[in-house]
């Protein structure tokens, strides 16, 4: 038993040594692998990650080989897929959903010379695990502004996937900016408890519409909520999520948040090739071009469009932060004082609604 532990430690040390030297010298060829939570044809979240992966081949040609697996369930199955990928010669593995957080760290411990990159998580338990995320809440602020201005019923809706900080952040940002321009606005949140289940997403959108909601933002991966909104002949509008979802232009899709992962993927694989790769915790947004705001269509009045674009530009220039005080928590206690800007730590662990939102976050 002891000897085995010793051997394992030695192997680990050896691996670390080799891994270290390899990254210092760079590599001739990188195999980049991607784990997807949905199909690449979802035209949303997974589609955008895959566009980033394809961009790698475009940029580096023969020096990069990509491999990917779609529809990988979060949890134990992911661990199997990751191990398989690690054994099949991947040099860097991108795991593109929050639920892959623990599997990524578990598998990373076993393969110290392979780089792991986990999207939207916060655990970096091993030196070969990096995390990357996008500041989606910046885009939500712009959607909230449009929603507050556009709603006629003063009811806006949000289809949440899972009650995790990333989603709660989006809900708060969306609500705060709608409230700012329309004090009467009420927000309904429906938790779908799935990232990708078009039938359930459509049903959730329908339930919101039946409740009188006329602006729907969704935090799930498919176009189903927009398809449901399209049935109302323009009475209900929504936003493209993760991808542009341009098929639903000019209405119900009046704008969108586009996740542009390509620059990050190109940068990281480039670093692996030239030997400058280091563990990072990346969180880029509109300024870096990782979050893009899709065209605001003519279904939105020109003045609202101009205001929304001004907000986008202010965020890009760094002069406006969507979470700027005074902001109270749902229970009325003070979160941010006048003029204070939310620290990243607060945002990454956000588990509360801001003042004015009714209902509880499921635990």
């Amino acid at each position, binding site marked *: 038993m002891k000897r085995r532990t010793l051997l394992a430690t030695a192997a680990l040390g050896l691996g670390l040594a080799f891994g270290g030297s390899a990254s210092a010298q760079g590599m001739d060829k990188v195999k980049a692998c991607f784990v997807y939570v949905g199909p690449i*044809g979802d035209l949303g979240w997974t589609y955008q990650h895959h566009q980033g992966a394809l961009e790698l081949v475009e940029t580096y040609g023969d020096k990069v080989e990509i491999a990917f697996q779609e529809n990988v369930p979060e949890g134990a199955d992911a661990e199997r897929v990751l191990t398989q990928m690690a054994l099949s010669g991947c040099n860097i593995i991108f795991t593109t959903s929050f639920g892959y957080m623990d599997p990524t760290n578990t598998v990373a411990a076993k393969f110290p010379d392979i780089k792991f990159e986990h999207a939207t998580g916060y655990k970096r338990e091993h030196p070969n695990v990096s995390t990357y995320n996008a500041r989606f809440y910046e885009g939500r602020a712009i959607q909230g502004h449009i929603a507050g201005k556009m709603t006629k019923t003063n009811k806006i809706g949000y289809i949440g996937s899972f009650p995790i900080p990333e989603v709660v952040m989006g809900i708060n940002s969306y609500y705060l900016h709608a409230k700012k321009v329309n004090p009467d606005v009420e927000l309904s949140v429906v938790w779908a408890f799935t990232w990708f289940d078009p*039938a359930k997403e459509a*049903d*959730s959108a329908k339930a919101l519409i*039946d*409740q009188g909601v006329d602006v729907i933002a969704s935090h799930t991966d498919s176009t189903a909520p927009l*398809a449901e909104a399209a049935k109302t002949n323009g009475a209900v509008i929504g936003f493209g999520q993760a991808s542009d979802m341009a098929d639903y232009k000019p209405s119900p899709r009046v704008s969108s948040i586009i996740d542009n992962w390509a620059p990050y993927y190109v940068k990281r694989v480039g670093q692996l090739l030239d030997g400058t790769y280091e563990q990072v915790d990346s969180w880029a947004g509109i300024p870096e071009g990782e979050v893009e705001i899709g065209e605001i269509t003519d279904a939105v009045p020109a003045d609202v469009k101009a205001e929304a674009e001004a907000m986008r530009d202010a965020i890009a220039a760094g002069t406006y932060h969507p979470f700027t005080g005074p902001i109270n928590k749902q229970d009325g206690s003070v979160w941010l004082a006048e003029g204070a800007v939310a620290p990243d730590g607060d945002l990454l662990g956000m588990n509360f609604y801001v003042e004015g939102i*009714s209902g*509880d976050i*499921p635990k």
Partner: protein
Amino acid sequence: MIGGIDPALLISALMVASVPILLAAIGELVVERAGVLNLGVEGMMIMGAVCGFIMAVQTGSALLGFVGGALGGAALSLIFALLTQVLLANQVASGLALTLFGLGLSSLIGQSFVGIRPPSTGTVPFGPLADIPFLGRVLFRHDWVVYASVALVAATWWMLKATRMGLILRAVGESHDAAHALGYKVRKIRVLAILFGGAMAGLGGAYVSLVRVPQWTDGITAGAGWIALAIVVFASWRPWRALVGAYLFGGITVLQLNLQAAGARIPVEYLSMSPYLITIIVLVIMSSGRGKASLNAPASLGKNFHASR
């Protein structure tokens, strides 16, 4: 408005949400009445969903899409018929295999159809009837498939109860040996029932991909076929009860989302599991009531028939 929910909207939403499981359940009900247990409903539904979608996109006609969906479901059920009626394979195992096969095959043939919008299935114009308060909203603003599904329930009920064909079908399901001795072609009747079940499941699937979600993605039916199977037992093999079962299940599914949207202070987890919980509770109550539900099952259900025995 009750608790912030408009009952008219709720009822009209539940009628739409129940259509896929209702169609599939009615098909399976006929199959089981003929003495065949086909657990492949989910597989046939998803084949119907993908075939219907492809047909609708290629031809630009939603109606032809539904025809395609029915054909797709029936084609897959033909495999089941071949396995169980000709090769006398085990029905449970064949049915499960059919589901797995259907899920895989649909994903393969649907690959180039992801992200396309199908032609829309219009609502039936009832003119002034649609403007009647409450009733207009509930009854007269649906697409034609909603009405067709109820009509199919009525037709199935009438066929089973009042026609010679129904009598023969039931005889085959109750005692295939006796039916055979009387000169009925047990195997032929069962194959036809299986094809009908496949076509109905296919229609249900096509409704999901053409109306309810309007798009194609892998695994779009998301377990609706299994619920249809449960509803057949729930209904104790009677068509009108299947309608009740489907509406009850669809209703609770819609209600839980509406409660969330209306801001009811009930934990979401309970709401999400409620449709399944209610199904289990009702099944337990039904089967404990002097064993009626189990007595009602066709006597030859799941048994293979071979003329030499």
